C-alpha cells in the first residue's frame, strides 16, 4: 500500500483519536498544573433556629473577579504532583530520615494516599492477571472438549460473570458475605467464630476483592482462548498424536505456542483493566482497607462543593504513566518478535 493511501485510509480514525483522546489528555494535564484562586473569606454572623454563631463565608463577588482574570486558576507547576496527596516528596524525605529501619519507612509510606492506593492496585493487578489468564485457559480447554450439545449452554453460563455489571455483581456479593448473608454465615459456622467478618479484616477484604476480580474477568480470557482453540491446526495435533504425544504434551507443545500471541493480547488488556480497578471497592464499601488509583480520582471529585480538579488531573496523569510502564515489557517483547519475524 502506498504511504499516502494508508494515511488517507486512517485519517478518520486518527482525527477522532486526536479529538477525543489526545486533546482531553492534554487538557487534563494543563488542569493538573493549576489550583483554585485564593478565596476571599469574610467573617460573618450566621443565625439559624438554634442560635447564632460567628463563622466564615466566601466573598463571592471578590472571588469572582479573581476568577474572571484567569479562568484556569492559579499556576501551581508540578506542586500538585509532589504534595502530600500524591508523591509526597517532602514528607517522604522526613520519614526516611526519622526511620531507623526499612520496615518502619514502608509503614510510614503506607500513610500517604497515593502509596497506599498503589500498594493495593499493584497487588491486585499482579495477582488477578495471572489467575485470570490461567483459569480462563483451563475453562476454554475444558469447554472445547465437551460434547457438542453441552457447549452452547456452558459457554453462556461461563460468560455470566462478565455480563453482570461490576457494581451490581459486587453489591450482591457484598450482601452474601455479610455476617447474616449466605457466605458470611456459612464461614462463621465452619470456623465456629461468630465474630468472623470478611468486611472487618484488611486481609480478608483484599482476598475478597481479588476473588471477585478473578471471577468477574475470567470469562474474558476464556472466550478469547476458546476462539483461539478453534484455529489450532488439526494436522499438527494429529501428527503429534501419531508421534505418541500425550494429551498434556499436545497442549504444552502445540496448543500453547499457537495461542501465545493471544495470551499476550489478553495480558495487555488485563493489565490495563486491573490497574484501573474501581467498582468493586465501591460495591464492597472496602475504602477502609483497600483503595485504588481510580478510587483516588473519584475521591478527589466526590465532594461537588469542593472538587479538586488539579488533584484529580494529577492522579489521572499518574494512572496513564502507570499503565504505560506496566505495558512496556509486553510491548517491547512484541516489537522484538515482530522484528525477528520480518528478518526471517
Amino acid at each position, binding site marked *: 500500500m502506498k504511504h499516502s493511501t494508508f494515511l488517507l485510509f486512517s485519517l478518520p480514525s486518527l482525527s477522532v483519536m486526536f479529538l477525543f483522546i489526545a486533546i482531553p489528555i492534554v487538557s487534563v494535564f494543563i488542569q493538573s498544573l493549576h489550583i483554585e484562586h485564593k*478565596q476571599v473569606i469574610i467573617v460573618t*454572623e*450566621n*443565625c*439559624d*433556629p438554634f442560635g447564632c454563631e460567628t463563622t466564615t463565608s466566601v466573598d463571592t463577588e471578590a472571588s469572582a473577579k479573581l476568577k474572571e482574570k484567569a479562568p484556569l486558576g492559579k499556576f501551581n507547576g508540578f506542586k*500538585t504532583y509532589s504534595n502530600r496527596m500524591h508523591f509526597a516528596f517532602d514528607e517522604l524525605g522526613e520519614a526516611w530520615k526519622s526511620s531507623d529501619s526499612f520496615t518502619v519507612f514502608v509503614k510510614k509510606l503506607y500513610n500517604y*494516599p497515593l502509596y497506599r492506593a498503589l500498594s493495593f492496585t499493584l497487588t491486585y493487578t499482579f495477582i488477578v492477571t495471572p489467575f485470570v489468564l490461567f483459569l480462563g485457559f483451563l475453562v476454554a480447554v475444558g469447554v472445547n472438549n465437551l460434547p457438542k450439545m453441552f457447549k452452547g449452554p456452558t459457554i453462556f453460563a461461563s460468560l455470566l460473570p462478565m455480563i453482570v455489571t461490576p457494581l451490581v455483581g459486587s453489591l450482591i456479593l457484598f450482601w452474601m458475605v455479610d455476617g447474616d448473608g449466605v457466605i458470611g454465615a456459612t464461614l462463621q459456622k465452619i470456623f465456629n467464630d461468630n465474630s468472623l467478618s470478611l468486611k472487618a479484616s484488611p486481609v480478608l477484604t483484599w482476598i475478597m476483592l481479588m476473588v471477585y476480580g478473578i471471577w468477574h474477568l475470567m470469562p474474558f480470557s476464556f472466550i478469547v482462548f476458546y476462539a483461539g482453540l478453534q484455529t489450532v491446526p488439526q494436522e499438527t495435533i494429529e501428527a503429534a498424536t501419531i508421534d505418541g504425544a500425550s494429551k498434556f504434551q499436545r497442549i504444552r507443545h502445540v496448543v500453547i505456542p499457537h495461542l501465545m500471541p493471544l495470551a499476550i493480547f489478553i495480558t495487555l488488556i488485563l493489565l490495563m483493566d486491573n490497574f484501573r480497578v474501581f467498582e468493586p471497592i465501591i460495591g464492597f464499601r472496602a475504602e477502609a482497607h483497600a483503595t485504588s488509583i481510580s478510587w483516588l480520582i473519584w475521591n478527589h471529585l466526590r465532594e461537588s462543593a*469542593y472538587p479538586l480538579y488539579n488533584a484529580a488531573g494529577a492522579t489521572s496523569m499518574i494512572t496513564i504513566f502507570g499503565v504505560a510502564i506496566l505495558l512496556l515489557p509486553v510491548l517491547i517483547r512484541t516489537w522484538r518478535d515482530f522484528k525477528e519475524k520480518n528478518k526471517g
Partner: protein
Amino acid sequence: MIFKKLILVGFISLFFSSSLYAADCGPNGQSIRILASDFPAIHAIANSAESNCAGSASEFNRNHTTEARQIMNAAQTPNPAEYTSVIVANSTLVQLMNDGLVRPLDDLVEKYGGHLKSNQLITVDGKIMAIAFMANSQHMYYRTDILEKSGVDGIPATYDEVISAAEKIRAAGIMEHPLVMNLKVGWNVGEVFNTIYLAHGGEFFKPGSAEASINNAKGVAALETMKALVEYAHEDHLTQASDDTQGLWEAGQAAIGFMWGSRGGVILDNEGSSAEVTSNTVLSAAPTVTGGSIPGATLWWDGITIATNVSDSEAEATFAALVSGMTSEMVAANNDDAIWLIDGFKPGPAAAGVSATAQGGAKSYPMFAQMGLLHNALGAELVDFLKGSESAEQALSDVEAVYETAAKDAGYL
C-alpha cells in the same frame, strides 16, 4: 338549557371558590422548578406548594433525588439556572453560597412570609438566605427491655455511662455488640467525630481563619471516646450508614444506637420490625461527656432557598408557592414526618430525641465556608486510628495535613 346553565353556574362557582380561597401565589404564568432531597417531609412541603400554586404557574417541576447535593452547584451555575429553588440543609446552603448561587430573601419574606416564625429565618450577615421548615440531629436510641434485663439503672446520659451500659449488656450475654453507629468510611465517620468533638467543647478552626485546629487535647479525647464506643459496635461498622444501622435496629440486633432523628418515625412505625423492638425503643438526647453539658450531636435544619440566576418574577412565584405550603394545616396532615419548625407541630415520641438534644444545647453543624474540606479529611484519615493501626495524635495530624493540602488547592488557605 337548564342543564347547560347548571354547568355554567358550576364552573363559575368553581372559578370563584378556587380564586377566593387559593393561597397567594405571586406573579402568574411563571415556571417553578425545584431541586430537593428525597424524604417524606420534603415531599410534604413540595406537595402542598404544588397543590396550592401549580395552577397559576406555567410549569411546576420537581426533582427529588438523594444526590441533590452532588448536582446542585453544577445545575445552578448557568444563567438561567436549572432550578428556581433548591431545598437545602446547613451544609448545602454553604455549598451554594460559596459560589454565590442563592439570593437574599428579605423583600420576599416581607411580601409573602407574614406567617413564618422568626426562628425559621436563616440569616447570614443579617441577610435572610433560607427559610427553614424542619430540624434534624443525631441522638440516642435505646431499648428499655434490654437495659433493664442487663441491670442498667436509668438512661445513660454520658458517653462513659453508654460504654458501661454496653459492657453490662455484653457481660449479661445478651449481645456481643450492643451498639450501632453510622461509621461508614467517608462522610459518616467524619460526622461521628464532629459530634463527639463538639461534646468535648472543641473548635474546628482557629478563630477568624481557615486554619484547622483539631489536633489538640479535645481532639484526642474525642477520638479516645470514639474508640471506646467502637469496641461495642457491630464488627462491620466501617461499612454501615443510616440504612444499615436502621436495619440492624429493626432486626433487634442492637440495644443502644446513635442514629438520625429523621429515622425515628420509620423505626417506630409498625413496618419492618417486631412489636418487641418498637414498643421498647425510646428516643432520647445525645449523650454528653462526663462533667460536660453539650450533647454530642450536630443540629441540622432543612429549608428553602431561591436561585440567584433566575428572573425576579420566577423567583417571586417560586418563593410564594413554597412558603404557601408552610402552614399549620400542612403540619397537621404530616405531623410525624419531621420535627417541624412551623406552627402547629405536636411533638410525638419520634420527635423526643431531637427536641431533647436541641434543648440540651447541642451545636449546629458548623457553617464555615471550608468545613466540607475538613469533614472530608476526617472521613478519610480517622479510619487508621479506628482500625488500631495509628495513634490518635498521628491520625489528627494526618487529618490536618490532608485538610491543609486540599484547602490550599481549593484556595481557602
